[in-house]
């Protein structure tokens, strides 16, 4: 009986032995399959969230994303991503007033020196808190803003 039980044990050991080379040789294939699972997407807190609206302001294209919850439970903290792009080069100074909820009232004013990265954010309503991040990302300029949930 013990000998019989040892057969599946040895078989499992051989499978374990094969798993290592297969894991690495077929890594790309398995990774592609894993990436199709529904949870395999970067959380909006990191990806910046879904696009809400894109509009043109002079030569600048402004993409305003939907605010995303910055913590899991009960917190009022949110983050908002705004992307500034322009064909060719970004302007030396980006100076814009943003109405992120599109209620026709400006919510904050932002001034960015695209050479030094210096960013000044002025809240115009009480739910806008501060600038969380401001950086060139590839050809665009991205800012993330801390908000309080309305």
């Amino acid at each position: 009986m013990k000998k019989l039980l040892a057969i599946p044990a040895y078989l499992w050991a051989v499978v374990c032995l094969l798993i290592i080379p297969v894991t690495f040789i077929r890594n790309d294939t398995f990774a592609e399959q894993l990436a199709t699972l529904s949870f395999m997407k970067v959380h909006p807190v990191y990806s910046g969230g879904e696009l809400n609206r894109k509009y043109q302001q002079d030569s600048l294209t402004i993409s305003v994303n939907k605010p995303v919850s910055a913590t899991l439970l009960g917190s009022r903290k949110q983050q908002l991503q705004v992307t500034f792009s322009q064909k060719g080069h970004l302007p030396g100074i980006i100076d814009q007033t943003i109405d992120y909820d599109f209620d026709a009232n400006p919510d904050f004013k932002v001034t960015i020196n695209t050479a030094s990265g210096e960013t000044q954010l002025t809240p115009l309503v009480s739910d806008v808190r501060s600038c969380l991040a401001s950086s060139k990302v590839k050809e665009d300029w991205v800012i993330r803003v801390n908000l309080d949930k309305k």
Partner: protein
Amino acid sequence: MKKPRVYATEGSIWKSILLTFPMILLILLFTAGGPPDLSTPEKSIAFLTTFFFLITLFFLILYTGKTDRYRAIGFVTLALFFALTFIVNLIKARGSMTFSQENLLACEIPFCHIVTTMIIIPAVITNSIIFPGSIIGGFASIASMLVIVIGVSLALGRGFCSWGCFYGGWDDGTSRLAHKPRIKKVNPVFRWFSFAVLLVIALISAMTLNPAYCDWLCPFKTVTEFEKVTSFSILMKTIVFLSLFVALVIILPVLTGKRFQCTTLCPMGALLSLTNKINAFDVRINKENCSSCEKCVKACPTLSLTAEDMTAGRPSITCMKCGKCIDACTKSAIHYHIKGTPNNKNYSWARNLFLYPAFLLLVVFLGGTMQSGIILLINLIKTGNLIY
């Protein structure tokens, strides 16, 4: 007293060569990925050195019957070359070891296996991954690393921590620096600390949607990458992880001879301990041969063996399958074992079946890294510049 021979390959050149042969083919496959690139002297030297280094280690493991002695040489080499190549590549790509806001906003941070411990609960609750990396494509993508974590957990459980982890070699190495450790007895309760860290970190990460261990604690940021200090909170984080590196990766391992960081702080170690339950290999004590000298207890770098564990006939689930206790035993009373098979026979079979996947894991991580590292060192000697 001389240890009696227990493995068929021990002391037998021919049997050792015969069993090294399949590994030679695997080393060729995983270090060269086809016909080796010998197009330049640097590449030829790098390939041949790596190839013979790995073959020699595997042969010596078989021929001498000592596992940990030669595993550790490869494992520490992996940690050193990984840090060297990673840092040089970062400096080439980004100009420094620090990552910037741009890297964070563009989700370009390489995914390390330890992050797995922090993404599981949020993945279940939010149906997404709380990490600023790329899901697929690029260096160390999330999907690719998760496939490795799953595969290695299934095959080797916590064996990953002694055969594949590119950080573990740091405290494995420092724990061997002092011939005799100053602190001789370490309370085995410390082996459970990493489980507490895992629990707390997993919960905090889920609540804050932030991989808290990476952000605040990971000592290995010292030898890979870290956030540029641009604020007081980043300065605090930098002080915390540097202090942990000095304390847990250097000072305590030197003083105790134990792998303190891996044993007490690493949440991935705790998670992989749980996966020790599902793979085929473990370490067992044959009580008939055991003289209770407790040499194995003293040798274990992860506090996984106590007098009670010896009575139970096996180390605790925190065992990393490094083989140090097996090397230390003069009675051949402790050995690799395949679960479900008799405890007191077929030592050679169990050991060899374990050694192939375990050593292959080391080959996969060390093969490419060592070649790149050697090329860097050759260029350093030739040009005086590491980052050419």
